[in-house]
């Protein structure tokens, strides 16, 4: 219920929202949790395994129970913590992990089957009968797994990523962080202060205390005003630092749009939902505070059982009393502040139960010293507690229990670079080890210093040391005076007794589970964690790690430091994948590269093929063609009989110049290029240093010291990097320069018996077979525009490649097409290009698959004996020249089935089709209109010696099993006469 006059949001406007379909009202400044509590709603969800009723436990991002789903459809957001979700007009939230409703959940029967769901139950169940696994158990488990659900619709939210640099990154805006930021800022450091909460101030937003003689809230306002006025200070709320990384790098998630309804304006502009920051900080001060830990006792998980600090946060910050008859259970002095604040606000305290015999007493409320809570009563809401003391056991009526087992410093970020925290017996807590993260200092509560004065002192001191390191002078800020009460605590991890006592609320792990793990010899904390799943929920064990460790230590009769601790890893809070991958959606993830001929191809209805990031026309369907094969067959024949035009601009083109250009080519190619004459092109083979084939291509000599190398489309980037490696790392003394010109030249294949006729209608100077023999190259011009012509052939017909600067690509393509069509030819695409080259046995990266050598390809003759080249030494290893290796062959179907497929494997017809009998595989297939059947290229053991043999081709995936004849890997014009035309 709301307490009039309490809370920071007094007088704020009302906000309408729904929870499980029920219309409710809250105030601006509420979180969903504070608004639910104000409406006296405690039951918010059902636990993971046992489907027990659960309520709001905390007031922070460590919340394990109050996870809800917001929205529906594309904007559905599961597993949102009600404790950090800002309330906005029209918010729609609903409970998770329950059906049909949170009030009446069918799977609550799981609670009765609890003995079967103990630690590691999934290793002992769902095993028999074996057949049931796939049909029954797995589907069941999948349905039951997880808490919230996704809608399966595409995410329509927009995310951003950003980068920031600063002298000093301050994580957390409580007293320690504010003091650090103030000290640094006043001396001129560039300060970035990040706060996870929606408002800055940390515990100063909750605790009723004084700083420098004035209320903490007033001091806070003054400091924020000063920081806000300084140009060298950036303040960011709703921004959680998620991870610490090398070199002073930090990740942070800014929740830009979570606190308001998504706006989809008519202009379609979206406020980004989240922004993921990468921050490079010269120094970092971690002022992340501490998280209060629960106590484990029987039935400690009922709605209405909350953390003591959370109860006073709801009271002091949001003006909400979570109950009318409140009790408190603690082992430390700090928790008593909740009782005091409640009493002063007029809320009835039924009892304060403290496990310590020397607990402080009060005239405001009764205190039971040396007592423990051993059970709770109630169903969907807490109704009573049972207290055990020297007097025996007694029941107390209560609707809200505020519990506290002490405080855990938030050491998480200090563990991200593999440091382990250190146990402090005096604090009964882990604190950061020094130098855990280079450049980061921990101050205040996260460093085990719990008093406000201590926090202020540490923040100021740490900032002062940062200023020294930065070399910044300036008067240091005076540290104000604040409370400095010592931290008094006695150990209390779990109350002994029967029944289940919860440690990890989110994963439903109890003291019994940890004990059982130890009994089954999972005694190391790493094993206990994974066997019980304690600490593996989205709260990353924030509420259970230390207590579980203490229980394990107790059960295995070791001390806590001896038992050790698990580490923390990023992210500190869950980060949506959309934020991590901001910008990498659709074209942002996979940019599109288009050819100059793309528009014309599209106009002709070409089917586009994605080749890496490029789009290339696969075929150009003509009127009446309904199947791609019709188009492909026609295009193959128009190249063989007339003339075809194909855009080959995607192949890598590298312009190489300089006195040592020929030396570079001789070094990277297996064959000789220093002997290449000007005006000629040569085919070259490139190896990796391990002797395997990396790429093939042609290299043209256009001038005395000027070459243009081509690569395959697939390997263009790789070859470029390779050339840079050779030139910079291996031969830095050579005088050679090169650059990629792939996108600078639009290049088209003009292929077929009428190719020269076509060109002579277009080029400014005609060509003939004597002046332009096969493998000639040189400069030409078209309508006065200078370009290049290469007489090379990938189809096996007389063919040329014509290149003009890319700006002329579109009009050149259209002109070439019109001329080709006038000669009875036309455009051809990738499908036809592939058939043509298979007919000739020309290789692509289907054959150059990284496991193939020059010998395998039948190109051993291209390995020069006269010069060193990349890969030479390793290429001659016995294993790479072995006659037993798979060598390239051709295949023709001779069995009843005429279908061949790439990826099929080859077997001797008399062998069983088993892996040990595998003789090879098929790399490329196509239907050859010339031969009226499918043909293929592949690799076969001792293939060169098995020409004419029968071989069995098997493709299990496509259900093909047929006989083939092994043939030479060239089907059409083996003498190569047609291209020499």
């Amino acid at each position: 219920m709301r307490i009039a006059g309490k809370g920071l949001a007094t007088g704020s406007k009302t906000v309408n929202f729904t929870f499980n379909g029920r219309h409710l009202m809250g105030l601006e400044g509420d979180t969903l949790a504070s608004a639910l509590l104000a409406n006296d709603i405690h039951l918010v969800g059902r636990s993971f395994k046992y489907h027990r009723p659960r309520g709001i436990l905390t007031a922070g991002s460590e919340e394990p129970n109050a996870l809800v789903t917001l929205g529906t459809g594309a904007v559905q957001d599961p597993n949102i913590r009600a404790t950090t979700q800002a309330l906005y007009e029209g918010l729609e939230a609903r409970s998770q992990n329950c059906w049909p409703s949170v009030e009446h959940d069918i799977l609550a029967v799981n609670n009765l089957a609890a003995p079967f769901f103990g630690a590691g139950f999934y290793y002992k169940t769902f095993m028999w009968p074996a057949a049931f696994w796939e049909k029954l158990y797995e589907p069941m488990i999948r349905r039951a797994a997880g808490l919230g659900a996704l809608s399966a619709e595409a995410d329509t939210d927009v995310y951003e990523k950003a980068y920031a640099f600063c002298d000093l990154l301050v994580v957390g805006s409580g007293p320690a962080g504010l003091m650090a930021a103030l000290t640094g800022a006043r001396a001129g450091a560039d300060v970035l202060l990040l706060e996870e909460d929606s408002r800055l101030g940390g515990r100063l937003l909750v605790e009723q205390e004084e700083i420098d003689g004035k209320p903490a809230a007033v001091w806070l306002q003054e400091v924020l005003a000063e920081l806000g006025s300084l140009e060298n200070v950036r303040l960011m709320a709703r921004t959680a630092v998620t991870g610490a990384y090398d070199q002073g790098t930090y990740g942070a998630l800014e929740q830009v749009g979570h606190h308001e309804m998504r706006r989809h304006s008519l202009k379609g502009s979206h406020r980004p939902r989240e922004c993921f920051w990468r921050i490079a900080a010269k120094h970092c001060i971690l002022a992340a505070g501490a998280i209060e830990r629960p106590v484990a006792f029987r039935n400690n998980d009922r709605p209405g059982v909350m953390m003591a600090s959370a109860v006073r946060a709801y009271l002091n910050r949001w003006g909400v009393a979570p109950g009318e008859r409140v009790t408190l259970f603690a082992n430390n002095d700090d928790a008593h502040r909740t009782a005091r604040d409640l009493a002063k606000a007029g809320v009835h305290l039924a009892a304060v139960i403290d496990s310590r015999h020397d607990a402080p007493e009060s005239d405001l409320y009764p205190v039971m010293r040396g007592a423990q809570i051993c059970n709770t009563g109630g169903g969907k809401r807490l109704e009573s507690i049972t207290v055990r003391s020297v007097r025996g056991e007694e029941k107390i009526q209560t609707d809200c229990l505020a519990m506290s087992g002490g405080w855990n410093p938030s050491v998480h970020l200090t563990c991200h670079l593999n440091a382990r925290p250190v146990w402090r017996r005096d604090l009964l807590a882990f604190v950061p080890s020094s130098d855990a993260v280079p450049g980061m200092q921990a101050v205040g509560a996260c460093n085990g210093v719990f008093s406000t004065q201590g926090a202020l002192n540490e923040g100021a001191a740490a900032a002062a040391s940062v200023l020294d390191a930065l070399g910044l002078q300036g008067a240091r800020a005076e540290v104000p005076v604040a409370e400095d009460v010592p931290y008094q605590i006695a150990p209390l991890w779990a109350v002994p007794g029967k029944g289940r006592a919860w440690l990890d609320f989110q994963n439903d792990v109890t003291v019994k589970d940890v004990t059982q793990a130890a009994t089954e010899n999972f005694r190391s904390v790493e094993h206990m964690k994974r066997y019980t799943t304690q600490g593996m929920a989205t709260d990353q064990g924030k509420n259970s790690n230390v207590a579980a460790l203490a229980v394990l230590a107790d059960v295995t009769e070791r001390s806590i430091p001896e038992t050790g601790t698990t580490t923390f890893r990023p992210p500190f809070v869950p980060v949506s994948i959309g934020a991590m991958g901001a910008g990498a959606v659709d074209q942002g993830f996979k940019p599109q590269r288009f050819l100059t001929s793309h528009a014309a191809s599209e106009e002709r209805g070409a089917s586009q093929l994605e080749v890496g990031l490029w789009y290339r026309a696969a075929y150009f369907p003509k009127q009446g063609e309904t199947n791609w094969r019709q188009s492909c067959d026609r295009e193959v024949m128009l190249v063989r009989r007339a003339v075809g035009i194909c855009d080959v601009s995607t192949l890598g083109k590298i312009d190489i110049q300089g006195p040592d250009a020929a030396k570079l080519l001789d070094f990277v190619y297996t064959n000789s290029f220093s002997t290449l004459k000007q005006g000629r092109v040569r085919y070259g083979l490139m190896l990796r240093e391990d002797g395997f084939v990396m790429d093939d291509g042609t290299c043209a000599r256009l001038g005395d010291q000027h070459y243009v190398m081509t690569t395959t489309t697939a390997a263009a980037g790789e070859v470029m990097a390779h050339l840079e490696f050779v030139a910079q790392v291996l031969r830095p003394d050579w005088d050679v320069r090169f650059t990629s010109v792939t996108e600078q030249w639009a290049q088209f294949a003009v292929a077929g018996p009428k190719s020269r006729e076509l060109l002579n209608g277009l080029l400014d100077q005609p060509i003939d077979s004597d002046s332009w023999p096969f493998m000639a190259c040189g400069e030409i011009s078209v309508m006065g525009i200078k370009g290049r012509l290469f007489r090379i052939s990938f189809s096996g017909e007389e063919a040329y490649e014509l290149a003009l600067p890319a700006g002329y690509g579109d009009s050149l393509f259209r002109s070439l097409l019109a001329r080709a069509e006038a000669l009875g030819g036309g455009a051809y695409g990738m499908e036809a290009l592939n058939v043509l080259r298979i007919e000739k046995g020309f290789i692509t990266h289907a054959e150059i698959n990284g496991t193939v050598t020059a010998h395998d390809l039948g190109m051993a003759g291209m390995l020069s004996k006269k010069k060193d080249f990349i890969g030479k030494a390793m290429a001659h290893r016995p294993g790479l020249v072995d006659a037993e290796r798979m060598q390239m062959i051709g295949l023709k179907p001779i069995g009843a089935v005429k279908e061949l497929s790439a990826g099929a494997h080859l077997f001797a017809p008399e062998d069983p089709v088993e892996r040990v009998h595998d003789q090879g595989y098929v790399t490329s297939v196509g239907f050859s209109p010339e031969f009226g059947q499918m043909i293929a290229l592949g690799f076969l053991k001792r293939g060169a010696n098995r020409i004419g043999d029968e071989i069995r081709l098997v493709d299990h995936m496509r259900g093909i099993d047929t006989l083939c004849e092994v043939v030479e890997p060239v089907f059409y014009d083996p003498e190569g006469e047609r291209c020499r035309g």
Partner: protein
Amino acid sequence: MRIACPICGERDRREFYVKGAALERPVEEAGLEAWHAHVNLRENPAGIMAELWYHEMGCGSWLTVTRNTATHEVLKVELASESGLGGAV
């Protein structure tokens, strides 16, 4: 992680491609053992190591980066062309 490219200054790791250990290329006649070691065998130190990085999204320089693989500290960055890794020509 950031690498200080001698030409471009400090840049995000993702602008680079890492090839691996910075090793001197053996001469052609060094023998198979030496070549096998160069291509296939690597020390895997938990400590200081020299690596080759390629600034492919930047200036295209190959760099020799001396790095501590245990602490991730980057100790030195130089142009690989100055590292003498080509071996005898």
